[in-house]
């Protein structure tokens, strides 16, 4: 069974986003960029399934410009078998990304697609569900536990009220949540080795997908700032302020 893990290069989770002075977007030059944390978790799960002998090959794919290959190198160093980049803008819209991934999944005869539930830059939380729809596959989103047996995947989902367990026939799309696993680090020798693995570049046209832009970013601004608060000395003073000044308790 082949697993596809789509990955995205994003602003590092520990870097605070800064808005560009011309309000056209968020600064991504000369700041630390990383593999999206949810993609890391998906990749880890895929590698574990290969180690357990359930999967035969883990393929990683990213949609983006040349520099997006950095995260493919990271994925290869962690243990992915094969990497490919679709040459399209970094912020290609989710529906187009889903169409590109669909074409790859079909071409590579993928049986399971494991991916992050969202990228921490645009916070869209769309691509996995869209990919499942386009392929006509079952989906399990926000997954915190996964068992694959034969042609069935049993997933525990984190839903608003608690947890939900559902079973899907493979092929299927699984989008992962934070508590699924603890991703491993790449060892130095593996990082060196990963540098030599070829990455294939694919043009969207060769996948029969037109990279449309239906959304236009008009402006990006900073959120309103909160005023500096006051320090209280004791719980009693706090309760007094909440009662008499704020009148909320």
């Amino acid at each position: 069974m082949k697993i596809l893990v789509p990955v995205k290069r994003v602003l590092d989770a520990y870097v605070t986003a800064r808005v560009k002075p011309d309000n056209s977007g968020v600064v991504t030059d000369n700041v630390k960029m990383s593999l999206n944390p949810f993609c890391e978790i998906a990749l880890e799960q895929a590698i574990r399934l290969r180690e357990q002998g359930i999967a035969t090959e883990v393929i990683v794919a990213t949609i983006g410009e040349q520099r997006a290959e950095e995260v493919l190198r990271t994925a290869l160093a962690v243990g992915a078998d094969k990497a490919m980049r679709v040459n399209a803008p970094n912020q290609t819209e989710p529906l187009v990304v889903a169409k590109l991934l669909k074409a790859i999944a079909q071409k590579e005869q993928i049986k399971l697609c494991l991916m992050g539930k969202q990228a921490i830059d645009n916070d869209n939380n769309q691509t996995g569900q869209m990919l499942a729809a386009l392929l006509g596959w079952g989906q399990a989103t926000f997954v915190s536990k996964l068992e694959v047996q034969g042609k069935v995947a049993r997933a525990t989902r984190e839903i608003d009220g608690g947890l939900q367990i559902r079973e899907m026939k493979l092929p299927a799309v699984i989008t992962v949540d934070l508590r699924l696993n603890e991703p491993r680090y790449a060892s130095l020798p593996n990082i060196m080795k990963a540098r030599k693995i070829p990455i294939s570049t694919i043009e969207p046209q060769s996948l029969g997908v037109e990279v449309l832009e239906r959304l236009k970013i008009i402006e990006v601004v900073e959120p309103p700032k909160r005023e500096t608060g006051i320090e209280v000395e004791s719980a009693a003073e706090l309760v007094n302020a909440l009662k008499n000044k704020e009148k909320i308790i």
Partner: protein
Amino acid sequence: MSILLIAEQDGETLARASQSALSAASLLKGEITAVVTAEGDKTQKKIVDKLAALKGVKKVLLVKNKRFLHEDAEAFATALVPIAQNFKYIVAAATGYGKNLMPRLAALIDKQQISDITEILAENRFRRPIYAGNAIATIETSDSIIPLTIRATAFEPVEEQDQPAPIEEIEITGSAEHSLAEFIDEKISSSERPELTSARIVISGGRGMQASENFQMIEKIADKLKAAVGASRAAVDAGYVTNDYQVGQTGKIVAPELYIAVGISGAIQHLAGMKDSKVIVAINKDPDAPIFRIADYRLVADLFVALPELDKALE
């Protein structure tokens, strides 16, 4: 031009987030048709009747299908395709339910969804937070049908009643998608306290709580304040509380009148879930904790001393 609102219920009540989504839908031009799935019993009838009576709802489409109650997105999205084609907007709350379903439907009708909107600026122009709320983007779409998910905290829920709208039952027969997945089980946390995302007051604990049983201190105060209890990702990861408590970028988004953060350092991802609260109180022993930068009231103290004091001060 018209609007399809996908309403959500949990078997007991209509989701308040759906009432917020209705509020957002009311700001768009067009008549609102609400679609909801429900079974035939009394409670369920009450939920559907409540929805039909909410101001702005012109018609209710009732789907009687037990499977759809458990977020059966595969079959439900397919069933909604012919209905959705007749509308200009498809609106749902950005809850777990909405996030799971809407992109699937959007892809099936070949339209690009806009997630988690906080403001409607024009018929095709919306505002939404990106980068965990550290930036706000204004987006314009050229799509002919616009699927939207709504950030519930940004829109006051519709409470007002009106003439009840007609309820039309629609039959949805089994499709091939029914066989893609099977519901096995659900573990729903039950609590007598207010629901986290709609509570007027929320008190949350973080890694500083150190153990699951220490959350009892927070619960005691929550009961005095009629507050909901939340947690940071660190507290959930450590197993102090279950996942449905998590407030943050990838957990629940809350904006209560009062948010009390106890033993929470204030990672970017936690702030993303609560920084629109009206009044923020932070209790932390580290005076440099990032949570203090957005707090209206700072109490620099050991929580194991401060919480019993707070409990006492509330008596």
